């Protein structure tokens, strides 16, 4: 199950990604997140409720970052969940994103 929920944040529009961001859901997530990126010049994606992430999911996050740069938008990932941190560590991709990751991410 994968869902995207709008979430209030003082710094501007923020979306919460929930559930499994995997090969099963990336196509749908791509469409939604791409249009969200189109609509707001600065977007935050909160990853605190991502329960599972696979290579396809990471690839999508990388692509979103690249798209944001290409389209002249700002995109920030926040609240990395333990599942996300584990995968980022495994693939050593934290540097690719450049977003600060809390070592002990708060779960809610």
């Amino acid at each position: 199950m994968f869902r995207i929920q709008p979430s209030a944040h003082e710094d501007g529009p923020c979306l919460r990604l929930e559930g499994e961001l995997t090969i099963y859901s990336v196509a749908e997530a791509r469409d939604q997140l791409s249009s969200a990126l189109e609509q707001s010049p600065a977007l935050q994606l909160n990853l605190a409720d991502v329960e599972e992430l696979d290579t396809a999911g990471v690839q999508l996050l990388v692509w979103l970052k690249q798209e944001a740069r290409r389209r002249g938008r700002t995109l920030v990932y926040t609240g990395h969940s333990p599942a996300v941190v584990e995968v980022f560590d495994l693939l050593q991709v934290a540097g690719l994103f450049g977003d600060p990751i809390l070592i002990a991410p708060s779960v809610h």
Partner: protein
Amino acid sequence: MDLDRAKQTYIIEARELLDSMEDALLTVEGESDPSEAVNAMFRAVHTIKGSAGLFGLDGIVHFAHTVESVLDRVRGQTAKLTAELIGLMLECHDHLALMIADIQSEVAESAQSIAAGEQILARLGPHLGGGLAKAAPTPQPALAAPAARAGEKPGRDCWHLSIRFGRDVLRNGMDPLSFVRYLGTLGEIVHLTSIFGTLPEREAFNPEECRLGLEIELDTAADRTTLEDVFEFVRDDSQIRLIPPHSTVEAYLRLIRELPEEDQFLGELLVAGGCLTKHELADALRLQKEESFADGAVQGRKLGAILIQENAVPAPVVAAALEKQKKFQDRQAQELKVVKVSADKLDRLVDLVGELVIAGASAHTKAQSGDSASLLEATTTVNKLVEEIRDNALSLRMVQIGETFNRFRRIVRDVSLELGKEIDLQIHGADTELDKTIVEKLSDPLMHIVRNSIDHGIEPVDLRRARGKPDSGTLALQAAHESGSIIIEVSDDGGGLNRERILAKAIERGLVKAGAAISDQEIINLIFEPGFSTADAVSNLSGRGVGMDVVRRNIDELRGTIEVETEEGLGTTMRLRLPLTLAIIDGFRVTVAGASYVVPLDVVIECLDLAPFLESEQNHLINLRGEVLPFLRLREVFRIPGDIPERERVVVIQHGDLRAGIVVDRLMGEFQTVIKPLGKLFRGAKGIGGSTILGTGEVALILDVAQMVQLATERNAPNRKRPAALAEQS
């Protein structure tokens, strides 16, 4: 997604590997040079472990790992393969099989099973020698390899793994993450870089396409094969390069040249990973510019080519490695030639072909009755093709019986240990082929016969010595083709069947009357009566009285027969005669009073006229070139009313060693037919084995040859009266 399918493939492969492991374990004892068998076991366990890692099946990885380590010690001759260790390995095999079965039924491993596994592992402990051997890298969590380590150790002995995954890897249900996780258990990931490159813009980006590349420094004791095996499932469409520790600078440079990414970027990666020094890199890049490659970014070659090119290994190792690689490639080629198809699909195909045969025959009949020569020609061609399709479809279902036979090695071993008997199992004709359905249905009755032979047939050692036989008993399984049937024999050199005891038991059970005149063979056949068992001691193998009658019923269902040949004190042979296939036969059509009957063509020996002046008409015997041939009239057997035509024909049929003539009105000729089983109501009908539909839509009955021959020969042996119970039963 296709993950499930990949897992199914894994399960199937694991089963096959376990089978080969078991085979190797069971044959290794008798071999003068066990190294081939030991290698086979090692490979099996090793591959099971490797692939299990990909699916995150940690339980299996953990268990198989220790088993593999022990086998590696045996392989390296630091441990001896004793009978005890073989027994233990068989237990390991069983436990692995259980774990695989759990995965298939998607049951989590139970605490009980884990405890059993741990217990086996504990017993393997002594065979491990001093701690885990070289092929035994302690699994390490992959997370223990943060980038911070990178700068810490220039010149460490690391494998460099360079992987560019194929576009379809994700869609095929693989997740590169699991490879990384698994590599973490093989050693320490010293450095890892994920390369996504620049992903396509907007709509051009397909999120299901994998664009990941990995450059990994892995500190591991694992060998090249182990590392290659990790990527077994993605090898075909991904570019994978493995550079061993201590490789020359050229090897890395070649890698830089072959990868699509920018040279400088890759070069820095390698420097970061400690493979190259900055100085070496600078030199190399300069050199490369001077060489001026026409195509700066040469697309990588496939793994195999790289491997062969890769000769940065000490000289004596090269030859061996090349040989190994060749075998490896041969195996790959072999794999491509085999397509696995589920049995259901095959059954469906054979069903359809069956219908096609009927429909083709129908069209042909129509064409024959019309007057269009061209139509007739067309249907003849179609029929010829249908015939070929039929043969091909049936041959798809043919499997060698060897696999079934080999399973008995284990049973013979276990049972002989349990009973304290020494038994030598001999297998002949393992490559004999027969229909898969028959093989499946044959396995149970065969098992029972084998167990009976071991349990009741082969005597205990002291008795064998007293009888002047060798200590070790012999059990032979034999298969061969014979005129359209397959003959399977199970013979032992045991005590044979004791006729007096059988007779006494049969009288006690009320199967025969005391004092009845019964031939020796009929006494022997009493063992197939329901509720008959002569075992004096009930062992947990056989002797529960549900034995041979079930066997015979199973064989009957397969349209086969079973014969017993026994000599007291010398041994027993059980001979099963089975049809090659159940579905389609070549038939010979005959008619009686206008109704059609079909005799399986392969039992028809010849056809002749029944001479009207036969003197032995009352005895139902024909003089066939000096040979006495019993015959019977189909008309009489099925009580068909109507006048006997002027000239009757005889079809001479053979079943086993017996021949008989069947008298019919007319011979219609060869006819290909699909057997349809008879309904429940007609199961008991004597002399009929099934039915079929003719091209005209009429129904024809297929004669049961075994029963026909029996009827004909028995009627002519009035002195051999069968016991009442037996006659009724059949």
